[in-house]
């Protein structure tokens, strides 16, 4: 019984860490414009809209976070093997992984933006200096939280995978959850803030992203500030729920009977299916159709 209570406590802590990680990951990717909406950041200069948005999408978020979290976890694991305190080892590992993220962000921004030189898009050195450190700070939070929860899963809950492999797995899952949930909010709601609320961006508007802020030109820190409120929070809740529920059903039910954990998982899927259907029906009823339904032909 004590073992299960201890496991639930660790599960709650891991869920909380995952929530912070998901939120920081989405905000980092939005500041760096690494998700799918980056296609518009890359397209805008080609349509004649020069901008001051950071642009580091040379890899998808899942493989990028898989690399950074695996690197942080691997280095932390090596430091722990050298008898360094786990807290210090994880911090050091994540600092080195964050440096790699910084190098990646710098070279990606310079490379991607330089490729737009023929369209007149400048490489802004002040953007490079001010944005890179902000993405690195958010990346450190995301990597640190993920590596810490991997360490907890490995040492406190007894998962068989070694720390670097757990870092790779949960880094990929973090990027997948963060990009899936947070990207539409950054792409539709922020980059196309000049379009109507409550409708998708018409394909004809592609490339015409918002480039001016309340004062002066908009930059990526403005985008991070905006998307952290809903996109970041939703990504955090998404990744937090994934980690918490996956661990919870295993810690509580696996020891009693392995089939119970599977049945509880299926029940959870059914519950989320009902919630999703409720959201869909609510949206259709509340927002209504955009056009009148077509009359059935006689």
């Amino acid at each position: 019984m004590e073992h299960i209570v201890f496991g639930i406590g660790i599960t709650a802590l891991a869920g909380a860490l995952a929530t912070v990680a998901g939120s920081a990951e989405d905000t980092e990717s939005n500041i760096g414009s690494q998700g799918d909406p980056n296609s518009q950041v890359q397209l805008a200069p080609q349509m004649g809209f020069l901008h001051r948005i950071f642009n580091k999408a040379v890899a998808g978020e899942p493989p990028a976070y898989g690399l950074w979290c695996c690197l942080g976890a691997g280095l932390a694991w090596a430091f722990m093997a050298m008898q360094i305190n786990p807290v210090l080892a994880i911090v050091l590992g994540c600092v080195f992984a964050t440096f790699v993220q910084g190098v990646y962000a710098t070279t990606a921004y310079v490379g991607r933006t330089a490729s737009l030189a023929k369209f007149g898009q400048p490489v802004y050195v002040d953007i490079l200096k001010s944005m890179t450190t902000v993405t690195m700070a958010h990346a450190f939070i995301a990597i640190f939280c993920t590596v810490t929860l991997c360490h907890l899963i490995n040492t406190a809950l007894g998962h068989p995978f070694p720390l670097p492999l757990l870092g790779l797995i949960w880094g990929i899952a973090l990027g997948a959850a963060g990009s899936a949930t947070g990207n539409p909010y950054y792409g539709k709601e922020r980059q196309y803030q000049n379009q109507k609320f409550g409708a998708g961006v018409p394909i004809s508007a592609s490339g015409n992203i918002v480039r001016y802020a309340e004062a002066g030109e908009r930059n990526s820190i403005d985008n991070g500030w905006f998307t952290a409120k809903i996109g970041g929070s939703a990504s955090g809740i998404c990744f937090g729920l994934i980690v918490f529920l996956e661990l919870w059903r295993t810690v509580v039910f696996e020891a009693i009977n392995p089939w119970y954990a599977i049945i509880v998982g299926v029940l959870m899927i059914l519950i989320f299916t009902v919630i999703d259907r409720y959201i869909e029906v609510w949206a259709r009823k509340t927002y209504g159709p955009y056009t009148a339904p077509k009359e059935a032909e006689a």
Partner: protein
Amino acid sequence: MSAVAAKPAAGSAMNPGAMAVGIILTLILVGICYVMSPGAGLMALIGVVIGGILIGFGTHFVPVGGAPAAMGQAPGIATGVAMLATGAGVAGLFGGAWAAETLPATMDPMMQLLIVVCAGGVGGGLMMAITCMMVNFLYVFGMGIPPASGKVANDPITGDSQAEYKSQGTEGHGLPFVSFVGGVIGGTLGGAGGTLIYFELLNLYEGALPGIMNVTAAQVLPIAVSLAGMFAVGLFLVNAVLTAYNITGTIEGPHDPKFKRWPRSIVASAVASALCGLCAVLIVVPLPF
């Protein structure tokens, strides 16, 4: 023939000759494994091939909208096919590997396999259910956009009409119910396939490595777990990326016309899995010469 002169619909055409070559290649690779390691190695390779096929087939179910979905221009989840399928699959692999660790060694091997694969499948399905639900949550409550499909007039499961819920100038947005169900099925198949690969390779390594390295089974366990886990993640990426090429960008789910391309993909997945699986098997098989 130049690329300009190629038929526009060539992407969805099946090539029976190429598929036959693929099947023959798979059989040749399985035959090599039979010669090199007829017992445990062959069983592991067959498990890897089946797991790879499950991943490749399951990826077709995952509703992925890519960059257009990020602007609310197309339905689906706003990320890459390979990215999302891998994210769900490795989450399932995590659960399946954990279940494999906790099962008693005295349990019937087939029952062990069943539990582990089911645990992996449910882990992947749960990850996708949460992600798909949160995507719709954000579209509806964050952006005020109702889900609508661009490929069908009515949702095949609920019967809801779709055309009038598409905003002007878009192909749809969000995840209609059929796409949600497709995402869960895709995550489940991916998680089950990845876990099957892991479990089969783990059994092979646990049996073969102590003899090769002259150590006890307990000492070799961390190496076996790490090796099997790395190969499982690697095979996941191989099959998910192959399928992403077959899908060519975006897919709404099982109701999308692109879904019909799956036979081509599973043949490719079988060949790729057989080749990668053969490498995974041969690292613990002494060469006969």
